[in-house]
């Protein structure tokens, strides 16, 4: 018996083998009865020296099973198996073994495991799709049973009122749980245990006490989560009620060390007994306002390390945090005249600036009208999107601009891979009357991320405007795009500087298809 086989035999006893490796070892053992005896003896030693061969994480398995069960139920009694294939390989998990719960994952179509066969087919399928591009087929995805989202983008600042919206795809009993960043779990809906949780299909805003927002952020920095669960089965709240109110001491998971989603789904399952539910999750983070502007990507550091490298330590990477990245590009006439500052620099003269926001493509699944007789109000949505046309890129910069060495600083904090619905923000701070990207790569990156045109009044290109630069004025443009959404459906808003930066923040907001207006 070779050394490798010996080690593999231990792995076989402990279950550390993949199915293919296990099959090979089984064949090796079956070839000689003495090997079978050795296996039995090793197993006997294992049984004597421990209670189990390995550490089975029941809590994770339970959460995974409940997710599969919810999906199974959504498919009907004759639904398909919980797995893509008969047996699939467990996907990579983090060292702690907790299942990855990403923002916005839905319980009825999320699995931690991916079929090996499916993995092997991904590459050729992608290649086939790239070779034969076809028109997008009409959406055939089943409607979501339940969907939850927040009215405020993450990260949230302390003191902010957070609105929570829930879209129920079908009639059912709804429960909305909120896990704060400090770990405490509360019930957002029904606010009172005696309230009937049944809701009709529709979109609702979950209101807090006194008909206000769902909650006001008063939590420490961290990541919180909101779970909305919808079930056709009745909910029983007896276990979680004390003195006709929610018992916060009972709103805890039944096992220790549960992950966030698992703890809340466990509570919902205890409310349902053997019933099933569909659910949706949304995560948020509470962070200081400066949190988003403290990091530089290595590429951007190369561009700006001499002049604009931050003097402070970057925040560590945070897995499963919501993406809050921004790009801030500063152009100035000369290097070293003024270092980058996180706060807008107040000029002696009153600056002329504007803030342009491109809010990304609008979701096609808009909110449904308020259900008649409901106790909730429909979420308020902005008017129709204002399309923003991409500008014609002007890569050539004037010699004066290059010689002046405009400074580019791109702080970029990415805390997780941006999802399809996430937005990327880009900010341009321009001096001397326009936006003159000094570095072609920086320009390309910014434009690609922003998908909106930044144009000076009168049709002048930013590069041309930069070459003039007689007037000290500043403009800020922030664009947010949906990277994975359908193109060309972005909408934006341009605001006067006073509307976002100063005491006159209540000033009017002007919508515009072009990002920056220059006075």
């Amino acid at each position, binding site marked *: 018996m070779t*050394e490798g086989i*010996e*080690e593999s035999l*231990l792995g*076989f*006893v*402990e*279950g*550390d*083998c*993949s*199915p293919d*490796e*296990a*099959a090979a*070892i*089984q*064949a090796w*053992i*079956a*070839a000689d009865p003495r090997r*079978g005896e050795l296996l*039995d*003896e*090793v*197993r*006997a*030693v*294992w*049984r*004597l*020296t*421990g209670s*189990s*061969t*390995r*550490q*089975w994480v*029941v809590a994770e*398995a*339970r959460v*995974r*099973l409940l997710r*599969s*069960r919810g999906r*199974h139920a959504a498919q009907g*009694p004759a*639904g398909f*198996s*919980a*797995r893509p294939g*008969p*047996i*699939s*390989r*467990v996907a990579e998990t983090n060292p702690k073994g907790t299942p990855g719960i990403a923002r916005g994952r839905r319980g009825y179509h999320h699995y931690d*495991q991916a079929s090996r066969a499916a993995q092997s087919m991904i590459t050729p399928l992608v290649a086939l799709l790239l070779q034969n591009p076809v028109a997008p087929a009409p959406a055939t995805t089943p409607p979501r049973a339940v969907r939850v989202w927040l009215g405020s983008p993450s990260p949230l600042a302390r003191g902010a009122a957070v609105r929570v919206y829930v879209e129920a795809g079908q009639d059912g009993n709804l429960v909305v749980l909120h896990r704060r960043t400090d770990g405490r779990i509360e019930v957002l809906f029904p606010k009172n245990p005696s309230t009937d949780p049944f809701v009709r299909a529709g979109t609702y805003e979950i209101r807090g006490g006194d008909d206000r927002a769902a909650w006001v952020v008063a939590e420490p920095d961290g990541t919180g989560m909101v779970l909305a669960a919808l079930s056709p089965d009745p909910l029983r709240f007896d276990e979680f009620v004390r003195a006709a109110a929610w018992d916060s001491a009972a709103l805890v998971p039944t096992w220790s060390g549960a992950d966030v989603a698992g703890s809340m789904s466990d509570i919902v*399952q205890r409310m349902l*007994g*053997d019933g099933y539910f569909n659910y949706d999750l949304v995560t948020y983070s509470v962070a200081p306002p400066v949190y988003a502007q403290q990091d530089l990507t290595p590429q951007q550091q190369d561009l700006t390390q001499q002049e604009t490298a931050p003097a402070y330590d970057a925040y560590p990477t945070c897995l499963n945090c919501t993406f809050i990245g921004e790009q801030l590009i500063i152009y100035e006439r000369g290097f070293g005249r003024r270092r980058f500052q996180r706060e807008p620099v107040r000029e002696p003269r009153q600056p002329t600036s504007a803030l342009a926001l491109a809010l990304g493509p609008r979701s096609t699944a808009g909110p449904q009208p308020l259900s008649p007789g409901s106790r909730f109000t429909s979420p308020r949505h902005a008017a129709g999107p204002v399309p923003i046309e991409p500008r014609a890129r002007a890569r050539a910069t004037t010699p004066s601009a290059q010689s002046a060495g405009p400074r580019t600083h791109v702080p970029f904090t990415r805390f997780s891979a941006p999802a399809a619905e996430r937005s990327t923000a880009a900010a341009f701070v321009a001096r001397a009357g326009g936006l003159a990207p000094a570095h072609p790569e920086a320009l390309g990156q910014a434009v690609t991320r922003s998908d909106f045109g930044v144009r000076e009044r009168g049709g002048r290109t930013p590069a041309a405007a930069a070459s003039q630069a007689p007037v000290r004025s500043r403009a800020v443009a922030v664009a947010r795009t949906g990277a994975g959404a359908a193109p060309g459906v972005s909408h934006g808003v341009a605001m006067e500087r006073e509307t976002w930066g100063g005491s006159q923040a209540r000033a009017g907001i002007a919508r515009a298809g072009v990002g920056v207006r220059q006075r």
Partner: protein
Amino acid sequence: MLESHFRSQLPKLEHHVPPATPHSWESAFQAYYVELCEYVLRFVGSAEAAQDLVQDLFLRLWDSRGPRDATRLTRPYLYVAARNRALKYLRHRRVVATWIARAVCEETPPSDTPEDLCLRGELDDAVQDAIAELPARCRAVFVLRRREQLSYREIATRLGIGLGTVKSQMWRATLRLRAKLGPYLALPLISEDRAG
């Protein structure tokens, strides 16, 4: 005659075993998930596959609606269902027929009787002595693996040794324990059909 008399005086141990009480779907999962995973692991040798099979079993039990009435979710029923599922998996994976024939002979591990618990208590001392007599490096690796459930990589990091060293030390510890505990391996408690 005398033998039959003593036999009649012996307590019927199986009567002390708590009867298999019916469970709800949820409580059956909590009670038997680990047991079933251990059992299925003996067939398939892969924890991933074992977990998948047990999950599929419970999912099927829930979907079929029948066992949710808490009349069939008993330990024997679950073990038989898990065994059948594991054998089906082996055939599907085209595992060699010899292994399948061996797996068919696997019996359901019985519940612990008071006698088993008593014998296990006595065995613990022997096991502790055997572990204590292991070489220091062997003992450290073995204890970290079996008691603290650390992965091989974590053990290597903690002890500052290579991953291959950890595996080889683990194998050596296993062989030494096998030799020292050999007399106990033949006890009914850890006979072939139950030991592991």
